[in-house]
């Protein structure tokens, strides 16, 4: 079957959205951008195609008239088993790379390789629990999942066997790049699927048929469009590279057709976009000169507080008396944070103040782009942060009255969705077909 794909290369993550020829979203994929742009594109596309095949399996089962709850349960079980297989295959490559780098070290000491083996063995043993029904994973990225566990185990192992913790950590930092860049680590859909179906045992005739049919299905790329910060380096020809402004505008319009104002807060930039009834951008503003007020600001604060990025918002939501933070410079915010902590202010109150500060900055951009016209759509990674959303809601009410604020669960994919829609148009018109 034919598909069109849009890829949004962000400063933090790379997202891919796959559309069928009818314009329906079939799959989404996301990966870290940090290692290599080209690989990030491949990995996100690979992930989106896996996601697409799962969508097709689900659709196949729906057509068979399977009871919806049962259908979801079965496909989710299969997907968990699939992800566990994928994780195992990545661990194999990680172990090999760790040993390769450990072997190169002259000063590593005799205990280094056994320590690595102990850590990896333990990580392998933990795979079933990590992907068990009901288990909560903090991230979908192998780097984050394996990294946090490796670090904990390395700490224990360093204490036990007197191997340098820093040395173990250094090995991981090197090895993970090769894992992220390795097609072998990502593995093949058919292989993981075969292993997954074997692992879950009795799948039932309908699921087995759907899996067989989808695994053998050839997915043909009709057209692709790339967007985002690294777009000039994306492996696409000129006509297939679109500004992220246009892609976010069109993506937001596709998610919420009544959208007129879009705010996207990404890792390194914040965009305020006005669109017309067709999703065509009529005006936009982006932050210049300074990245304060972007997602990275929150990342910096999370690092300063030794918290995960996803933990910031919920913690800030517990605030009862937000602290007024005037500094919106990222680095100064770190200094302000330490000062406030030293003064005995509560962490959640300080965090609530910091969230308000970045939203104030975004509001200034919105004003510059022409203000807020109903409906308003909030996109980007920061739209998943409940404290940022609450601050925005409050400030929107204060400044623009009761506008409708849309946030999609898939808001992080808005740019990629817009890009995929542009790709579909190109594909239909026979232009810029990319393979």
């Amino acid at each position, binding site marked *: 079957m034919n598909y069109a794909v849009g890829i949004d290369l962000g400063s933090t993550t790379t997202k891919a959205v796959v559309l069928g020829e009818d314009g329906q979203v079939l799959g989404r994929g996301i990966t870290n951008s940090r290692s290599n742009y080209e690989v990030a594109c491949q990995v996100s596309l690979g992930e989106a195609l896996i996601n697409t095949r799962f969508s097709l399996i689900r659709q196949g089962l729906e057509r068979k008239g399977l009871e919806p709850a049962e259908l979801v349960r079965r496909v989710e079980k299969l997907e968990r088993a699939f992800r566990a297989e994928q994780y195992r295959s990545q661990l194999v490559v990680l172990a090999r790379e760790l040993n390769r780098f450990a072997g190169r070290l002259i000063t590593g000491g005799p205990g280094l390789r056994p320590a690595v083996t102990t850590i990896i063995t333990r990580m392998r043993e933990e795979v079933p629990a990590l992907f068990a029904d009901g288990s909560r994973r903090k991230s979908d990225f192998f780097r984050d999942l394996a990294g946090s566990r490796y670090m904990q185990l390395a700490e224990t192992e360093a204490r036990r066997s007197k191997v340098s913790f820093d040395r173990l950590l250094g090995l991981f930092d090197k090895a993970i790049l090769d894992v992220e860049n390795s097609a072998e680590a990502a593995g093949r859909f058919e292989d993981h699927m075969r292993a997954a179906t074997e692992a879950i045992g009795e799948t039932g005739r309908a699921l087995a048929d759907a899996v067989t049919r989808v695994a053998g299905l050839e997915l043909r790329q009709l057209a692709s469009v790339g967007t985002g910060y690294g777009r000039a380096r994306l492996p696409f020809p*000129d006509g297939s590279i679109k500004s992220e402004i*246009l892609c976010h505008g069109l993506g937001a319009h596709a998610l919420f057709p009544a959208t007129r104002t879009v705010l996207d807060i990404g890792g390194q930039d914040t965009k305020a976009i006005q669109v017309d009834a067709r999703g065509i951008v*009529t005006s*936009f*503003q*982006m932050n*210049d*000169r300074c990245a304060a007020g972007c997602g990275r600001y929150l990342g910096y604060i999370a690092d300063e507080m030794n918290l995960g990025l996803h933990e910031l918002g919920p913690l800030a939501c517990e605030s009862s008396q937000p602290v007024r933070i005037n500094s919106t410079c990222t680095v100064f915010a770190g200094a302000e944070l330490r000062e406030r902590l030293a003064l005995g202010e509560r962490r959640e109150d300080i965090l609530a103040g910091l969230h308000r500060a970045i939203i104030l900055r975004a509001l200034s951009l919105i004003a510059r782009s022409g203000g807020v016209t109903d409906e308003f759509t909030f996109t980007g990674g920061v739209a998943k942060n409940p404290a940022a959303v609450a601050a925005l809601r409050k400030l929107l009410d204060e400044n623009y009255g009761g506008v409708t604020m849309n946030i999609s669960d898939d808001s992080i994919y808005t740019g990629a969705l817009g890009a995929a829609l542009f790709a579909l148009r190109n594909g239909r018109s026979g232009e810029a077909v990319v393979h």
Partner: protein
Amino acid sequence: MTQPSRAISHANKDESQVRQKAMIARHFDELAAAPETGAKTAYTFVPGNLTELLLSFDLLPVLPEINSLQSAMRGKTAEYISIAEKLGHSEDVCTYVKSDIGMLKSGNIGPTGQRLPDPDVLLLSYTGCFTFMKWFELLREEYHAPVGMLHVPYQSDGRITPAMLDYVVRQLREAIIPLLERVSGRAFDEDRLRQHLARSAQAEEDLVWVLQSAKHRPSPIDAYFGAVYYVGPIFSAFRGTDEAVGYYRALRAEIAERMRQGKGPVTPDGDIDQERYRIVVEGPPNWTNFRQFWQMFAAEGAVAVASTYTKVGGVYDLGFRHDPERPLETLAEYCLGCYTNLGLPTRIDLLTRYVKEYAADGFLINSVKSCNSFSAGQLHILREVEARSGRPGGFIESDLVDPRYFSPANIKNRLESYFQMLEQKRLGGAA
């Protein structure tokens, strides 16, 4: 994105460029030789410059703003600004000023590599840029030269009243001319001034023709990047000279020929073959990355068809010409009518008019960090011009001569987005 090489064909030097280079070289030779020849110099500013009057006293003009922008194009301003900041000038001060101070402290070596003479007089024509006065206060401390202060009333309601005109003429007659007589040791010669003014009017006529050639499709000129070269002689030391008359005559003939051949503008990388976007630009260009900035437009086939920056040394396309029959009045009208001396409503009218008359696809504001005179109110201008012209505005930020404030990736990103937005609007969403 289209790469520069695709939109642009080969480069060659036009006769006018060669001519201008020779004029500048000769002028800086004269300045460098001034300590020996005894020639007197006047430092002055581009907006509201009284070049004809200075020339009538045989005073050689030096323009610190132009020295600053040329220092930036030569890659010297990072060092000059750093010197000025060490002396206590804050990061937010106009970077033209800091570059000038830094250049002065580094031996006052001008754009041609020759030393500039100290000023015999600082002629301050106060036309809307509030920093000018402070700038010359600083230079007065350094050079101990007399300051001639011509106070030009701001055109806040968009018109020149008889009282305003009379006020400026009286200052010229009672303060500026007597000062220049003292400094130069020459008596005021009104006939000589008239001759210079007559030459100015001739050159202005040809300049306006050149700038208005951008109404043609494709435009044979780039009225922002290319035009900063075209306005060079008339904005600096050459207005009122035979050389300027000759330069503009030659330039007009060149542009007429380009137009006849259906050619687009010349750029540092050659001709633009396909005019894809016609843009009106507000605000000064960035000088530290001037060529790179220009390429970001040229590579996309974006051609500036009108700009306000090329009016800072005189708004001639609305009909003003220096009039030799009314020498002091015409100088006063010139100063009062400079772009920097115009209020926001007048600037909005002018930009809207440009968008319409030059059939522009949109207009773009380059907001300059360290120039409050230009930048204050630009977002208001953006909204108003958008509303009145129906054309989308774009907004980017950089600086005049501080390389720290030119972020190529960000600016390119915004420009590409802006041009793609124009394309999308043009195709009605089918792009």
